């Protein structure tokens, strides 16, 4: 409650157009430009990977060569030249740091500029008594600092860069990687399978409630370096974990491609809560230089009463193409999708979810809040599928769009496929505008025009913001305000 009330002050305190638009100059150890089998082998060798993983990458690469770039999404951009991208870069280091003291101070400085919550800054700075948020920092494709490993280890929780998991827990990685998103899945996921450089791995053993929120900060840094993160989280029977993911990127002229894959495996009675705040550089007012974000996120509820909840705040990127999905296989399993997607200026967002109901009494909830401003186009695209055996399955979808100005667009594309005679599917959709009346009312009480807009839009997003963990809620509210700067008047 108190935090929510601080929103407007925080929004007001951020004056720069895009305060994260800076570039740090850590030397990159880069693979030659372009993509080929040799590059795939180069990445695998750099990561000191076992043979089976190289084989898997190569299978993916060969399959990718047979695929064509999808064009069904409501987004438009110049064709990507996949031979004009660097597929591997890493900050130069002689050895892996053993503690935070050994971490490049410039890196720590970068985190500071990003405004990472104080708690986590303390963790990164190694302050004694700092606690409860473990940060597996992904910087330019290689994880540099991993904290709180020990405390997690005590509980048997594994939280580490995926390349490390490949070395230390190969049996787990081999068992689950590609089990939710197969390497043949889609154009970008297949590309990712071939060239993924890093990402996080998380394993929560049976019956363990992860003692802290796990968070990862992604950051795209070296020019023209596509980021291909691969995240794999496994929640064993009766376990629970809350995972936070947040991203910002520096200002750049060239478009940067990002094609991540996130796989979640949830067993009987287990729960994963996955929260994202995405604030990648959206391009300037004319849409020049923004990030292309093509992500595949999917969760498989494998056991009874398994639960997954995706919460996302998408404010950045020139193009967002993202559909975090839930496969509700176990009986009584639950899938949730709470989303705020903001598109301003020339941004294009095509985002939503898929709820695939396979088991009995499975239920899903979708709450999507789309905000369009400037000349942006914002599309909600969602699939609800009830399988033949999904007896008494239930879905409830609420899809609200908010328009700011008269040059933007909001589109809602729901797909409903029902093969179950006893399933219930509900879909509600609304479209509204921020009215001149509302703005004037707030201004008459003393709020500036931009503060008024931020307050009204945060109100519109409230149901979703409430689903975010505390530390993320603050950042998300700030972002909502920042993202809409310049959209008024």
């Amino acid at each position, binding site marked *: *409650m108190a935090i929510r009330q601080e929103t407007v002050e925080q929004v007001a305190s951020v004056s720069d157009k895009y305060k994260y638009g800076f570039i740090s100059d850590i030397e990159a150890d880069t693979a030659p430009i372009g993509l080929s089998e040799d590059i795939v082998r180069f990445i695998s060798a750099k990561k000191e990977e076992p043979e089976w993983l190289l084989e898997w990458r190569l299978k993916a690469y060969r399959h990718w060569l047979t695929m064509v770039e999808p064009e069904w999404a409501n987004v438009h951009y110049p064709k990507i030249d996949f031979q004009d991208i660097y597929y591997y870069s890493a900050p130069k280091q002689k050895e892996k740091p053993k503690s935070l003291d050994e971490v490049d101070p410039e890196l720590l400085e970068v985190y500071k500029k990003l405004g990472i919550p104080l708690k986590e800054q303390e963790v990164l700075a190694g302050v004694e008594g700092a606690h409860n948020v473990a940060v597996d920092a992904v910087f330019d494709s290689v994880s540099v600092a991993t904290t709180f490993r020990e405390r997690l280890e005590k509980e048997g929780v594994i939280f580490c860069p995926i390349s490390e998991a490949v070395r230390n827990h190969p049996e787990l990685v081999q068992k689950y990687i590609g089990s939710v998103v197969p390497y043949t899945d889609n154009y970008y996921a297949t590309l990712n399978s071939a060239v993924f450089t890093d990402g996080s791995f998380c394993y929560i053993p049976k019956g363990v409630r992860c003692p802290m929120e796990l968070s990862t900060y992604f950051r795209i840094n070296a020019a023209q370096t596509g980021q291909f993160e691969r995240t794999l989280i496994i929640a064993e029977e009766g376990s629970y974990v809350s995972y936070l993911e947040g991203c910002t990127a520096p200002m750049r002229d060239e478009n940067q491609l990002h094609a991540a894959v996130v796989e979640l495996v949830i067993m009987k009675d287990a729960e994963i809560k996955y929260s994202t705040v995405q604030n990648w550089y959206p391009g300037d007012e004319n849409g020049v230089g923004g990030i292309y974000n093509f992500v595949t996120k999917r969760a498989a509820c494998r056991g009874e009463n398994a639960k997954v909840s995706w919460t996302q705040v998408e404010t950045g990127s020139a193009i967002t193409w993202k559909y975090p999905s839930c496969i509700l296989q176990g009986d009584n399993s639950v899938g949730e999708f709470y989303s705020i997607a903001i598109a301003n200026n020339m941004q294009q967002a095509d985002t939503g979810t898929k709820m695939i109901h396979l088991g009995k009494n499975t239920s899903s909830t979708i709450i999507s809040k789309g905000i369009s401003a400037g000349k942006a186009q914002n599309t909600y695209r969602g699939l609800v599928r009830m399988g033949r055996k999904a007896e008494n399955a239930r879905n409830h979808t609420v899809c609200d769009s908010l328009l700011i100005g008269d040059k933007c667009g909001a589109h809602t594309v729901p797909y409903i496929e029902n093969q179950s005679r006893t399933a219930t599917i509900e879909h509600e959709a609304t479209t509204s505008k921020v009215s001149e009346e509302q703005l004037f009312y707030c201004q008459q009480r003393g709020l*500036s025009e931009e503060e008024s807009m931020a307050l009204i839009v*945060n109100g519109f997003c409230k149901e979703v913001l409430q689903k975010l963990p505390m530390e993320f809620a603050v950042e998300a509210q700030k972002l909502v305000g920042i993202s809409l700067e310049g959209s008024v008047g």
Partner: protein
Amino acid sequence: MLEIKNLHATVGGKEILKGINLTIKAGEIHAIMGPNGAGKSTLSYVLAGRDGYEVTSGEVLYKGEDLLALSPDERASKGIFLAFQYPVEIPGVASATFLKTAYNAQRKYRGEPEVDAMEFLKLIREKTKELDIKDDMLKRAVNVGFSGGEKKRNEVLQMSLLEPDLMLLDETDSGLDIDALKIAADGVNRLRSPERAGLIITHYQRLLDYIVPDFVHVLADGKIVKSGDKSLAHELEEKGYAALSAA
């Protein structure tokens, strides 16, 4: 406090205010009455600075300063409060959040320290108690699902909290039953002081039984056609506007 000199204003190209002259001194409460379409609400919007209400000539001085040069939020922070005839709904924003945000925005503008959540809660509870308003209203989204009476009470609550120097009330009495009317009037009367002034726009004399004005003006066709003391309000009630504006 407020000097309006030969004020002309248009809305959508149509002239609504056709030369208003009015001076309000600190400590005074003025009432403006008049038939529908006379320009009563337009006057309040022009004073508050709403978009689309264009001043074509004349000037308005507020505490000696050119009011028309200020943005709506600056006017608010300098102590002008407009109680809306139709308060606006803001879904998802709790009244308490809205009030605290507004309160601190104004304090910040004036260079005063902002209050934290605890302090604010204490302050607002005092106000709700004074005005006999239930606390649960603070948790509800601003004006969403409020009855007509609740909306007006919310306006009065906001006014009590923000403690403006110049209160503008635009038909605050419309849609209120007698009990709510008394509460609203009580809110205004509590704020009455030698340092503050008020401009009360109303259609009926009824509200003026509870907020007794020092002056009453009749607005017809964009001009003030008659001014007097509170007895003018009674006269209007008996004879109607037609007789007066014809005079």
